């Protein structure tokens, strides 16, 4: 069985853009399971259900969850316990990775670390890479170019940031895509139902403007490659 893990951002993004039907089509094309952690369920369904403005989006995601389009991983209690341990270790490592003169900078939280931890556990279970869909920038930078993240923080915070570089490897090896790459695949597989040559462009910008961390240049390159 193949698995794809979703962080909360891409699911919120698909919901806000009215693209949840596409997620169902993508799952069929993927021929595997779309997984979320308990932390992500809290962020995309349980908490927003209490906010009038986001209740509808949360209910739509809840419907997908009830139908098993997105689901929790089928793991044993021992694996749940292990997931928590790995999650906490990753969080501890990430949040002591960068230091100003006086203190560590806390970078990421439970939800993001749980997605990474689930990827590690599922990879070991199925002996296959288990990629993660993440729209937010920090976790992706931490995994793919932690030095860029250090430089960015140094520039933005106007202070020197020292890195515990030997811990960079703790975040190496995760395969990450974003909601925009899912849209690209959907377009390639003719899953975007609208018959309009601008549909890919429209979807990519829709996703960018609802929080997917992608540059204008990347969007333009994707539009060109999607033609």
């Amino acid at each position, binding site marked *: 069985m*193949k698995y794809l893990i979703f962080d*909360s*951002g891409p699911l*919120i993004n698909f919901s*806000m853009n009215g693209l949840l039907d596409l997620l169902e089509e993508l799952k069929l*094309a*993927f021929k595997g399971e779309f997984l979320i952690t308990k932390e992500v369920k809290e*962020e995309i369904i349980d*908490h*927003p259900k209490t*906010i009038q*403005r*986001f209740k509808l989006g949360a209910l739509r995601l809840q419907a997908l969850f009830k139908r098993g389009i997105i689901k929790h991983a089928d793991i044993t209690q021992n694996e749940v316990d292990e997931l928590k341990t790995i999650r906490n270790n990753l969080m501890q490592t990430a949040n002591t990775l960068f230091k*100003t003169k006086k*203190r560590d*900078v*806390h*970078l*990421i*939280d*439970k939800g*993001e670390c749980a997605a990474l931890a689930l990827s590690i556990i599922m990879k070991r279970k199925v002996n296959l890479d288990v*990629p993660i869909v993440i729209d*937010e*920038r*920090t*976790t*992706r*930078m931490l995994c*793919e*170019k932690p030095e*860029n*993240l250090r430089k*960015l*923080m140094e520039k*933005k*915070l*106007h*202070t020197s940031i020292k890195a515990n570089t030997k811990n960079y490897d703790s975040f190496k090896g995760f*395969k990450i*895509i*974003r909601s925009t*790459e*899912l849209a*690209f*695949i959907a377009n390639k*597989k003719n899953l975007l139902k609208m018959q309009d040559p601008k549909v890919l462009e429209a979807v990519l910008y829709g996703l*960018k*403007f*609802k*929080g*997917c*961390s992608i*540059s*204008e*240049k*990347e969007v333009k*390159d*994707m539009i060109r*490659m999607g033609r």
Partner: protein
Amino acid sequence: MEERSHILNILIKVREALVKKDYVKIKSLSNHVIHHASIHQDPDVISIAVIIYSLSKLIERESYKTEKNWSKFYNDFCKNIDDMITALKNKDQDRFHDEIIQNRKLIQGLSGRLKIFINDVFRGAKINKASRIYEHGISMEKTAKILGVSLWELAEYSGKTRIGDVNLGVTMPIIDRIKLAEEIFSK
């Protein structure tokens, strides 16, 4: 609060800018607080960033100023800032914290349209400051928790900014990421 002197200095500058109704300066001072808030993630410092940014918006916009109780609210707000300054000068952390709570009570004590307006300003300020902290490199989830905002509103707001366009944020050539996505869906 390790950064007491820095916050004190900023609040004094805010008070000076208030006299001139210089909302641009006040807005910029709120961004100075955000640099510190991103590192320290101290709830009181974060509250100060939100309070200062809200203040800049209250001065900038004219629409509230004809509302009943506006003058009293504004005067109480300014006095609250003065009391924060006094608390910090006296190195009285508990009193400073109490003054931040007092600021919230000022809004809770309002009624009618003014309460709705001011609540909207503070809500907007929270989202704006959350977006700035995310821009500084703190993750979206962490930022949402620090500011007490929903991930949904933070994603929506930050999507409209240029955060995604920073060169350092491009961590893999797009062609490679598309290849990765194709591999994921091809096996």
